[in-house]
């Protein structure tokens, strides 16, 4: 009997060597493990922050959460002080970053020559990598003495206004980059239709392109705000250096934010003395910050999904 070659070729012959298959299977499991590790990072963040924050919440006397200011080592944890300062500084930052970020986004996507764009885009990326401590130094060595002092003679050396402006400078590249992506996603046909009806460039930009990109612009604002609230070093250097903070509403005075209060507590993690809860308050503030920024980022995501026009 001499079977044809085709019939002797079984599935086992086509199957490759066990070693090659094992390597492929092993690789798959390693990749899966890495992906699981990233989820583990989130789980660990939530677990550590929540468990320590819970210790704080369950032990703190609630009337200490509303007092004259933030004095963790004396057991006074007035949250409104930090929340108001965080909000004030972030709003100043947005007042700087939104006009400038949107303006440069519109310029780069609608007006700029491609060659200009090719230079400006990497420059914006480069700006995003400027270390925040450097901007903190910039705030106290330039913004306050050279720009603000001539106009406001009674301004404090450490003040929320300079901190807010510096945070704003830091957030511009982020806002500009998200906004530019949104503007460029608007189809050319809309611009052409508008120009075909005789609209000037300014009319096309303001009445057609900007409204069409509205969801992306709003998302840029929300994400930028979230970044501004989470910014730590600028505020620690320029406004909230001490670990205590008396409640005040003036933007010419110094004031600690959620983040700078955390940094100040961290600078003394070995020597947290005085009140036992000072250390746990660090994690409580972390939980607060985590919830606020996560909430803002999810709102940003939602806006994009809800308002996105289907082209």
């Amino acid at each position, binding site marked *: 009997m001499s079977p044809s070659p085709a019939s002797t070729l079984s599935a086992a012959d086509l199957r*490759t060597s066990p070693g*090659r298959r094992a390597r*492929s299977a*092993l*690789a*798959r499991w390693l*990749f*899966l*493990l*890495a*992906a699981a*590790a*990233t989820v583990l*990072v*989130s789980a660990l*963040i939530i677990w*550590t*922050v929540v468990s*320590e924050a819970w210790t704080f919440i369950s032990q703190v006397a609630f009337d200490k959460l509303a007092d004259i200011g933030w004095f963790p080592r004396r057991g006074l944890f007035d949250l409104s002080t930090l929340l108001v300062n965080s909000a004030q500084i972030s709003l100043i930052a947005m007042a700087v970053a939104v006009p*400038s*970020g949107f*303006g*440069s986004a*519109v*310029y780069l996507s609608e*007006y700029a020559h491609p060659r200009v764009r090719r230079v400006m885009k990497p420059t914006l990326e*480069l700006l995003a*990598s*400027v*270390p925040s*401590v*450097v901007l903190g*130094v*910039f705030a*106290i060595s*330039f913004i306050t003495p050279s720009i603000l002092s001539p106009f406001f003679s009674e301004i404090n050396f450490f003040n929320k206004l300079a901190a807010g402006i510096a945070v704003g400078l830091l957030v511009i590249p982020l806002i*500009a980059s998200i906004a530019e992506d949104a503007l460029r996603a608007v189809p050319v046909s809309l611009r052409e239709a508008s120009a075909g009806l005789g609209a*000037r460039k*300014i009319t096309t930009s*303001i009445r057609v392109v900007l409204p069409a990109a509205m969801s992306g612009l709003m998302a840029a604002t929300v*994400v930028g705000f*979230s*970044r501004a609230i*989470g910014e*730590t*070093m600028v505020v620690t*250097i320029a406004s909230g250096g001490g670990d205590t903070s008396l409640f005040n509403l003036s933007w010419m005075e110094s004031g600690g934010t959620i*983040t700078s209060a*955390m*940094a100040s507590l*961290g600078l003394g*993690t*070995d020597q947290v003395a005085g009140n036992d809860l000072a250390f746990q308050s*660090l*994690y409580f503030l972390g939980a607060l*910050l*985590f919830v606020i*920024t*996560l909430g803002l*980022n999810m709102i940003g995501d939602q806006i994009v999904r809800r308002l996105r026009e289907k082209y």
Partner: protein
Amino acid sequence: MTVLSTPVGIATSAADTLRRRPGADMAGAAFKWLLIGATVFATGFLAVLLGVMIVDGWDVLSGNLVHFLTHGFSQRSATDAGVWQGIIGSLQVALVTGVFAIPIGIATAIYLVEYAEGSRFARLVELNIRNLAGVPSIVYGLLGLAVFVKTLSGFTQGKTVIAGGMTLAAMVLPIVVITSVEALKAVPSSLREAAYGVGATKWEVLSRQVLPAAMSTILTGTVLSLARALGEAAPLILVGAATGFLRFGDANFAETFTGPYTALPVLILNFAQQPGDDWGTNAAAASVVILVLVLMVNGVAIYLRNRFEKQW
């Protein structure tokens, strides 16, 4: 007066009407210059920043630079203080960050793009990465303090470069994953299909075709993430980078990984918080050093991207 009854007359008159009168689009011109102003403000402040720092730090940069770069921190006098330990510490931390963040980040991206696209687990990982990317850096410091410094102290030896690097690795992980995912998605599927067609296993397709093709973009992303780690101070404060005097003694390079350490941005914070103009000069000079370092690393990344960029 043109005669309107001939076709040519009508056309000329229409062209006159439609022609933009000089100076009529004042609003448009003003708008354009407003936009240019915004762009100049957004990008030009880097030059102002660098200029201010160089002027403020000039006393150190011009007369004392070698001493400044090669000497350690000194509490006693500003003119004795240097940033040597900060530079070494920052590079060590960045090294540890890279060792942890790069393999895990790239592997996660490979899993998401090549193995599990669209599955429920992949969607969970993607959502998780997006959310992690928005978590403020100082929150990673809390994670590092509780997990890497305390729980894993057997491995990290407490407040060391290893704990600091792992903390920053968790922070930059989303950046590495996101850029690697984009790089892998840009590799055309024809490349994979061709490799499968000649009998390669999935691992062979990935390791010999897809990864080499995506590597330049992935490299750019990882280098940018390391630049971010180099400039970050907030989490390091929480996981115990020393802000004050550090004595290395005769510890060799390997031993410094498990001893006390500091980092350049943390030193800048310390300089900035000391009273007196001398310390301000130091803070400015150290800011120039870190700006040069970060801009150099970014330059490398942009060079890599332009040098090896592929068009499919």
